[in-house]
């Protein structure tokens, strides 16, 4: 079932087009990574989905409900974390979560229970009675994640959820997101930390200058942008095998690295299909001790740069 969908979503600020005819379809129970350079339109799209901004044209649906600005029915089903979560500094962390629970109409007993669960989840239990004004940026980010989860949302919109966190905090948040997905929550997260996206997102959309450049499963995307490079490792020198490879018409280039007795070959193929057929046979016939053989996929970062970086003026 579709969790988030938009058709021709466009947002203009005067002459500036922040979103240009965005079409997206995101299935339930996935973590969708929304990528793009600064100013690409990620935050604008998130704000429209969260009912905080109106589109100039086009429509969007979240959990089957058409997105209308400040729709209370829709907002009771979603969670939203802005890029820089802001709190009432005179409140403590627990007080803020209690306030959010009251907004969602939870009973006092449920609020106490949920607050304890969420404070535990984001590792803020010990600081729950401290005023938010004394929180570090990472603590505020974690409190922001907790408040977005108060209503056990069906869809969670997160704008750069890991941007203010240290590597340990990032890892914890990403693990939390994976757990939430397992509990049937759809997560829509924008991020510029591509390693994080690659780690947890099943599908991604890359946006540039308000336009969707690509929407795809992460694995499919990496396969699509694979550079036909094969990595082969032998447990002995492989000079004669390298010469043999270089004589093949379907091989473009062979790079060799030798570390001790181990030879590491990076074979870039002109013809991927022939390489896939020929290489295993040649390795078997070479008499060398094979240590590793794999097709090298690009990282998401490399794909991102290829898609977006080349479009820069």
């Amino acid at each position, binding site marked *: 079932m579709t969790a988030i969908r938009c058709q021709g979503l466009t947002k203009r600020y005067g002459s500036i087009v922040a979103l240009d005819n965005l079409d997206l379809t995101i299935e339930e129970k996935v973590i969708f990574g929304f990528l793009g350079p600064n100013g690409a339109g990620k935050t604008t799209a998130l704000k429209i989905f969260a009912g*905080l901004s109106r589109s100039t044209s086009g429509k969007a649906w979240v959990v089957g409900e058409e997105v209308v600005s400040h729709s209370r029915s829709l*907002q009771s089903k979603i969670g939203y974390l*802005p890029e820089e979560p802001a709190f009432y500094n005179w409140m403590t962390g627990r007080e803020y979560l209690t306030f959010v629970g*009251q*907004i969602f109409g939870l009973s006092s007993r449920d609020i106490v229970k949920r607050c304890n669960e969420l404070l535990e989840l984001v590792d803020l239990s010990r600081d729950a009675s401290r005023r938010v004004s004394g929180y570090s940026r990472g603590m505020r980010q974690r409190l922001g994640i907790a408040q977005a989860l108060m209503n056990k949302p069906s869809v969670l919109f997160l704008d750069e959820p890991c941007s203010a966190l240290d590597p340990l905090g990032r890892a914890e948040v990403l693990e939390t997101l994976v757990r939430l997905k397992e509990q049937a929550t759809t997560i829509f997260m924008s991020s510029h930390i591509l390693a994080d996206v690659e780690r947890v997102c099943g599908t991604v959309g890359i946006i540039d200058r308000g336009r969707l450049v690509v929407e795809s499963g992460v694995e499919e995307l990496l396969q699509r942008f694979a550079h036909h490079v094969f990595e082969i490792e032998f447990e002995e020198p492989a000079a004669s095998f390298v010469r043999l490879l270089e004589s093949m018409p379907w091989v473009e280039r062979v790079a060799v690295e030798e570390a001790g007795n181990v030879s590491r070959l990076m074979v870039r193929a002109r013809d991927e299909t022939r390489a896939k057929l020929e290489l295993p046979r040649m390795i078997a016939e070479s008499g060398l001790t094979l240590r590793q053989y794999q097709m090298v996929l690009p990282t998401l970062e490399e794909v991102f740069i290829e898609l977006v970086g080349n479009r820069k003026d």
Partner: protein
Amino acid sequence: MSSFFVLFRKEFKGQLRTYRLLIVVAVFFVFGLGTPLLLKYLHALVPADSVATSIPEFTTADVVKSYISSLGQLGLIAAILVAMGSIASERESGTAAMTLSKPVGCGSFILAKLAALAVTFGVAIAVGAVGCYLYTVVLFGNPGGFHFFVATLLGALYLLFCLAVTVMYSGFVKSPIAAGGLSLVTLAAIAGTAGLPGMKDYSPGALLSWADNVASAGGPNSWWVLIVSVALVIITTVIGWQVFKRKEL
């Protein structure tokens, strides 16, 4: 609990925790006590060889008139200063977006702010009025409890109108300073209309002169001023709500 009451409670708690309630009460208490004290001892404060001889003896009516005038002037400044950031600063900091991404209506958001400010100023006006009344009784004689009470209520309604205008502008713009400036200009213009022949029977600015009349137990009642003022409080709140809900957060 409806979202209005949740937000109202949060607003009122915020007024307490940030000492805004305490400061506003202290301001009104000081000028409530200060007005009769100042008028009683003005002769003693001014050097004997200067204009002291030309200062008349003040009566109870003079004290109440001076108190109502201070309520209109100091109260207006206090109302603008306290209310100008009520929505603008929340939009600027991002807390409004956090709150309004939840199932909260923009109407409840604005109404809760106005209600919490009204309670704060209501408490402050009450404390100031009690102080002023008691000191006036002690130093000048009884000004008439009922008339003093009604005059204070009219002054309070004027300040409620000032708060409603300031909260409305605070929802229009992101800068608290701009909201304060717009409110000051608008309220000064409205106060100016109280002196115009065709407007003095309708302008909220005329609430203070009506309060003066009530305090001195003379002059006609201006029911249209009351009706128009209440209507304008409602209209400015509705305009503020309608404009605010169209704003990008």
